[in-house]
């Protein structure tokens, strides 16, 4: 008689990461379809920028009614969308470079999710410390390191595109969060690399255990 398979955490996570990988691939395709105007009115690109300090402060009523109360706008994140009349207008190096880097970040995200799926698949089938898992964790660490760099470049490109598109009326810049992400990515990558070394020791111990008669 066939017994019902138990639901374990690695099994759940295995399928969660598989679903996320598939969803990520679909989102990437939708992104590209949108950018090249295949399923919409026309081609466009979109991304996040921040407006840099406007020249004049906004004067507001003072809480006590005495003196001035000025508010300076030191940046506000905005989603910008640059639309194009036709596909040929999109085919310029700066727009294509933006699409490349923006979607490269997507690809890296999908790559990380896929590696997570493979790790949990191994755990699910009972292989805890294969050397393959260590290699996959190292790849994740590398992707986590590169991911914010790609995002940073894409954000800079979008800021540059927006700056020109706005005709210098408002100064657009890269949102500061992308700089913070660089540091965070580096730190996270180091932590994951350390984890990979722990896995390496684990796999050596497992191999030793298997070869002890």
């Amino acid at each position, binding site marked *: 008689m066939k017994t019902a398979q138990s639901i374990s955490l690695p099994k759940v996570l295995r399928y969660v990461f598989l679903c996320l990988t598939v969803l990520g691939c679909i989102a990437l395709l939708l992104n590209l379809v949108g950018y090249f105007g295949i399923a919409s009115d026309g081609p466009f690109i979109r991304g996040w920028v921040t407006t840099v300090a406007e020249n004049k402060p906004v004067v507001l009523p003072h809480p006590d009614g005495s003196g001035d109360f000025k508010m300076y706008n030191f940046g506000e994140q905005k989603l910008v969308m640059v639309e194009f009349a036709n596909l040929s207008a999109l085919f310029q190096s700066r727009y294509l470079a933006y699409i490349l880097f923006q979607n490269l970040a997507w690809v890296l995200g999908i790559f990380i999710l896929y590696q997570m799926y493979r790790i949990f698949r191994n755990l699910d089938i009972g292989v805890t410390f294969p050397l393959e898992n260590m290699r996959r964790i190292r790849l994740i660490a590398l992707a986590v390191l590169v991911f914010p760099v790609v995002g940073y470049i894409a954000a800079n490109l979008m800021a540059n595109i927006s700056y020109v598109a706005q005709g210098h009326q408002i100064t657009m810049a890269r949102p500061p969060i992308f700089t913070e992400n660089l540091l965070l990515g580096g730190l996270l990558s180091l932590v994951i690399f350390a984890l990979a070394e722990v896995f390496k020791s684990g796999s050596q111990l497992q*191999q*030793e255990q298997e*070869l*002890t*008669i």
Partner: protein
Amino acid sequence: MPIIVNVDVMMAKRKMSLTELASKVDITPANLSILKTGKAKAIRFATLEAICKALDCQPGDVLEYVAEAGKSE
């Protein structure tokens, strides 16, 4: 590795097959094969004891130390 496992020599002397020894020692033939071919990294005292009992020999008959050529002491 400078430790040589002579289980096959002792098995031949006692005219015992791998399957027979595996069943007497209570380990799988695959594991005994790992031991016989020198791929094993370690051997438990319990396994060594069972092998010595089954082959009626001393641990020194099963294990031998041979210094590696080119390695200084």
